[in-house]
Each structure stands twice: as structure tokens, then as C-alpha cells.
């Protein structure tokens, strides 16, 4: 599957871009040419040789702030996705095995989590619980977990009721072999797609929260925070939001692209693969691509 992703141009592009972003998140703070927290007299300067992206309203180097802020912004979305994976997938699998009461209860809880107005809740709960990064990650992680619940539950349902697993057991296959051969192959692509999608969502939410100043204390640099401070001085540096917005949009695009590529490669829904094949065949075939039913409930977010 990994080789398949790499063979598609879109897959290569998204993987390369995301690697750069993750390297940025790890080494960014060390690469910053200036102290991101210390202001100078050089207020609201335009980009120059000393300050490649100019300075903000306190004279702090914008490039340094973006580099230093990449840790929270990027690793935050990874944390959100991992928390969501555990909070969602475990009850999702258990819901198939633990009886109808548990099933009904978790299903209604998932309904409720989906119905909650996401951002207002994330903001309010994070601020109430002490306004720190761990709280923010936990709250957002729990709120995006229904996507994993559904994926895990669907996979567990198909496996628990499938005849090929039953047949494998009857023909004397070991549990380990069944898990490797059938269960893994069924769950892994679905989990990977949801993980990539959730990281994209988590990234947007973390950026939104830091933009609002929720989850971080003011001087700490974040991409959302840089954007927020640029917003107040549009008259002086009207191009300033461009740097952070381009970074944010490209990262989200890369996550979504990666999810699509995994879906293509694993043939999970078959939708994207079919469209691509038909494109090659020509214009008339394109019409058929629309016949694949939409999955409003399958898409996380």
C-alpha cells in the first residue's frame, strides 16, 4: 500500500509536502533566525534581507514566529488524530461485542457529539478546563472521534458477520493469521483514510483555536496567533496574512489529498479510482462516475 501511494504523483506530492511540514514542526524552533518572543523598534517592517517576511506590530520577526509556532500547530493536529483514534475506535469495536445496551448508548453518544456545534464547544470547554494545550487537544480529539467510531464499528461488524472469517476458523487458521490476512486488510486502509482526514480537520481546528487565542497563552507563537496579529494591521501590511494562510491551506490540502490517495490505492470506496480510470477512457465515460452514490454519512466532517 505504501508503495502504491508513492507511485501516484498526487501521493508523492502530498507525502513530500507533509514531510517538510513535519520536519518544520520538529526543527522549526531551532531554525528561527530571531527570538520569536522579543520585540524590536523595527515595527511592522516590510519584507527585507534581514526580516524575510517582515515584522509584526511589536517588531518581532514574522518568519521566526512562524517557524517557532509550527510545533504546536502541526503536532497538535497529530495529537488530536491519535486521541480521536483511541477514543473513537475502541468503543466502536466494543459496540459490536458488548451487547445492545452499550451499542445503543454509544450510538446515541456519537449522534450527540456530531450534533454539537463544534467550534463553540471546543472554545468554551477548553477555556473552562484551564485553557491549556493538553485540554484543547483532548476536547478536540473527543469531538472528532465519531469518525473513528463509525469506521471501527463498520469494520468490526463486517468481520464478525463475514463467512470468510468463519471459514478460515473452520479450516484451522490461527487467530494471528486471520488478523493479519483478513482483519488488518479490512481495517487498516479505512483507519488510514480517517486518520489523514482527521489530521486535516484537527489542523483547521487547532489553527482556529490558536487564532482565537484559546489553548495558548498570548506571547507563545502559533500560526493562528501570527494570523490574528496580522489581521489588526492590514492597513500597514495588507499582504501579511498571505504567508500563514498559504501554509495552512496547503497543509490541509495535503492531508485531504493523502486521504484521497490512500482511498484510491486501497480501493476502499472505489469512487476515486473509477473516476481516474474513466478520465483516461475519455469524455463520455466520465458520466458514469456520477452514478456512484454519495456517502454523506461516511465522510468524517
Amino acid at each position, binding site marked *: 500500500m505504501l508503495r502504491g501511494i508513492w507511485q501516484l504523483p498526487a501521493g508523492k506530492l502530498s507525502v513530500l509536502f507533509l514531510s517538510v511540514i513535519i520536519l518544520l514542526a520538529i526543527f522549526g524552533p531551532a531554525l528561527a533566525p530571531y527570538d520569536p518572543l522579543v520585540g524590536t523598534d523595527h515595527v511592522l517592517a516590510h519584507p527585507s534581507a534581514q526580516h524575510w517576511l517582515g515584522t509584526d506590530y511589536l517588531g518581532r520577526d514574522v518568519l521566526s514566529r512562524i517557524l517557532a509556532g509550527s510545533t504546536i500547530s502541526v503536532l497538535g493536529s497529530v495529537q488530536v488524530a491519535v486521541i480521536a483514534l483511541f477514543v473513537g475506535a475502541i468503543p466502536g469495536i466494543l459496540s459490536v461485542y458488548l451487547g445492545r445496551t452499550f451499542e445503543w448508548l454509544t450510538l446515541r453518544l456519537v449522534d450527540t457529539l456530531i450534533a454539537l456545534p463544534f467550534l463553540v464547544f471546543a472554545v468554551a470547554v477548553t477555556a473552562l478546563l484551564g485553557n491549556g494545550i493538553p485540554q484543547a487537544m483532548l476536547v478536540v480529539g473527543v469531538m472528532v472521534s465519531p469518525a473513528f467510531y463509525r469506521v471501527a464499528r463498520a469494520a468490526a461488524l463486517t468481520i464478525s458477520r463475514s463467512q470468510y472469517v468463519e471459514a478460515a476458523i473452520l479450516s484451522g487458521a490461527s487467530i494471528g493469521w486471520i488478523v493479519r490476512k483478513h482483519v488488518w486488510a479490512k481495517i487498516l486502509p479505512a483507519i488510514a483514510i480517517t486518520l489523514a482526514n482527521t489530521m486535516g480537520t484537527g489542523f483547521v481546528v487547532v489553527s482556529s483555536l490558536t487564532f482565537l487565542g484559546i489553548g495558548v497563552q498570548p506571547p507563545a507563537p502559533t500560526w493562528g496567533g501570527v494570523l490574528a496579529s496580522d489581521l489588526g494591521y492590514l492597513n500597514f501590511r495588507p499582504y501579511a496574512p498571505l504567508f500563514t494562510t498559504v501554509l495552512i491551506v496547503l497543509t490541509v490540502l495535503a492531508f485531504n489529498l493523502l486521504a484521497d490517495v490512500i482511498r484510491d490505492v486501497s480501493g476502499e470506496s472505489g469512487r476515486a479510482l473509477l473516476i481516474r480510470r474513466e478520465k483516461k477512457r475519455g469524455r463520455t465515460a466520465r458520466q458514469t462516475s456520477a*452514478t456512484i452514490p454519495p456517502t454523506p454519512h461516511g465522510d468524517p466532517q
Partner: protein
Amino acid sequence: MASIHTERETLAYGGASAGLSSRWAVARSTLALAFRSIIVFVTVFFLATLLTFALQGLSGLSPAHLQLSESATPEAIAALEHEWGLDLPLWQQYLNWFGGIVQGDLGRSWYNGADISLLLTSRAAISLSIAGLALLIGVTLGAVLGITAAKFQTTWIDRAITTFTTFVSVLPPFVVGIGLVAIFAVWLNWFPSAGYVPLDRGGLGPWLSHIWLPSLALSMEAVADIARQLRVGLIQASRENYVTGALVRGLSSERIFWGHVLRNGSGPALTMLGMKFPNLIGGAVVTEAVFGLAGYGRFAADSASRGDVPAVQGVLVLAIVLVVAFNLLVNLLLVRLSPASARGI
């Protein structure tokens, strides 16, 4: 009771003519379905309020944090908590609070003792103006784009619209908002970049010019989703056998499209609208921050930073009520459009 029956009946069956007995059967099954969907919504509402109520315990905050100094004696704290009814058993506190909600009473703020329902009303007016207009833009623009793409499928128009919706759907609302401010407020100076004028004070023009940009920023996600779902739904519906049947019967293609295809193909888009509505209500926090508006998102963030739990709960309950009510409406609309969809509840 009789009036409800007839209402549901027409709701389920529209203007179609049928025998009286089968009409009754349909009405009865629709009633049962409506009842079942109402049970689902009531459960969701109940659980959501329970989660909201639990915030008080989870946060560990009490009015003592806001009103008393660090050196307050345990007796003073206990007296204050007794005054706010916080020494009662939890279930009783929940019942009291829930009873208040049902009557529209959201309690009093820990911060200044003001009635939260009153505090919220003017702020909610701002947020709901924006969310309402965003919904309107989302539905209209989304429908226009989706229908256009479906009617001109496989042409460059379709491809252009699909590219546009794909791109727009990944843009976070605050990025769109900042872009709109930079272009239309700072550069072109067509609209104000911040602030709000109530409808009853400035009239329609100023009101619209202040909420236009925030609504547009908030609506983009809905526009993209509705356009995409509608396109797929319409193309799918246009291949059904009843469309061929209608063609054979000699109906004009326009009539088939507006009468048959649109009605049957708009289900997925409507479902999507119901699912995305929480984002419209919740996204207000960010758009309000971009456009410097004092709506309920700002109120929630400010109150939460102060530790004013009842005020935060008030905002959340309002948002929950809106989402649940809207989804109930969407479900009823879906049943009205195609009664078969009710089976999915």
C-alpha cells in the same frame, strides 16, 4: 389531535390522490416514523444538555472563584455555594437547571448575577443574523452551482464548478474571512471590515452591509458541500427509469428536471445541510473574531475565560436547541420529499 393527524397526513403524502384507506395507512406509518425520529432527537438533546451540565463538575469551578478573594474562609465559600444551590445533590441541580431551560430560563451569571437569557438575546441576534444569511447563501448559491453543474455535466462549466467547490471546501472559514476583509474592506473599501448595526436601528442597508462579508465567509463550506451533493444526486436521479418513462410519455425535459429529477435528487444535499448546520452555528466564534463582532461566540469565549460556567452553558444550550430543531425540520422535509427516506432514521 385531529388537526395534527391531518397535518401529518398531508405532510407525508403531499397532493397525490389515493384511496382513503391507503392514505390512512401512510399517515399512520408516517406518524410512527415521526415519533421514532422525535425519540432520537429527544435523546440527543437530553445527552447534549447532560454533557453541558457536566462541564460545571468537570471544570471544578464555582462562583467562589469569581466573587470571593483567595483568602475567603471555607464558611464564606459554603454560604455562597448554598446561595447558588450548589450544595444540592447533582441530580437535583440538573433537574432544576433543565427545568429552567424548558421554560427559557438559563439561570444567572456567576460573574455579575445578570439574567443570562437577557444577556444572550442581543448577542444571539448578531450571530443568528450571520448564520441565517450564511444558510441562505449556502442554499441558494449551492443549489445554483449544483444544478448548473448537473445540467452541463461533462462540459467545462461542470469542471470549473467542481474545481471551485473542491478548493473552497478545504478553506477554513477564518482564512476565507481574512481574504474577504483584505479584498473587500481594506483594498476596495466596499464593505465595513468590522462592527454591527442592528436591523431596527440602521435599517436594512447598513445591517446587510455589516453582516454580508461574515456570512459569505461562513457559508463557503455549505456552498461547496451542497453543490457537490446536489450535482451527484441530480445526475444519479436523472438516470432512473422513471425519467426514461417520463420522456417516453412525452414530458418536456424541463418539466422532467424540475418535477422529477430535482425532487428525487435533492435528498443527499438536504441530508448534508442538516449535518453541516452545527458548523454554521459553531463557526460563528471564528467569523465573529475576524470581523470584530460581539456575538454569542465571543460571549462564550469571554465567559469561559472568566470561569462563568452558567453563561457558557447558556450559549451551548441555545446552540444545541437550534441544531436539534433544524435537523428535525430537515428530516420532516426529507420525508415530505420522498417518504422512503424515513426508513433510514
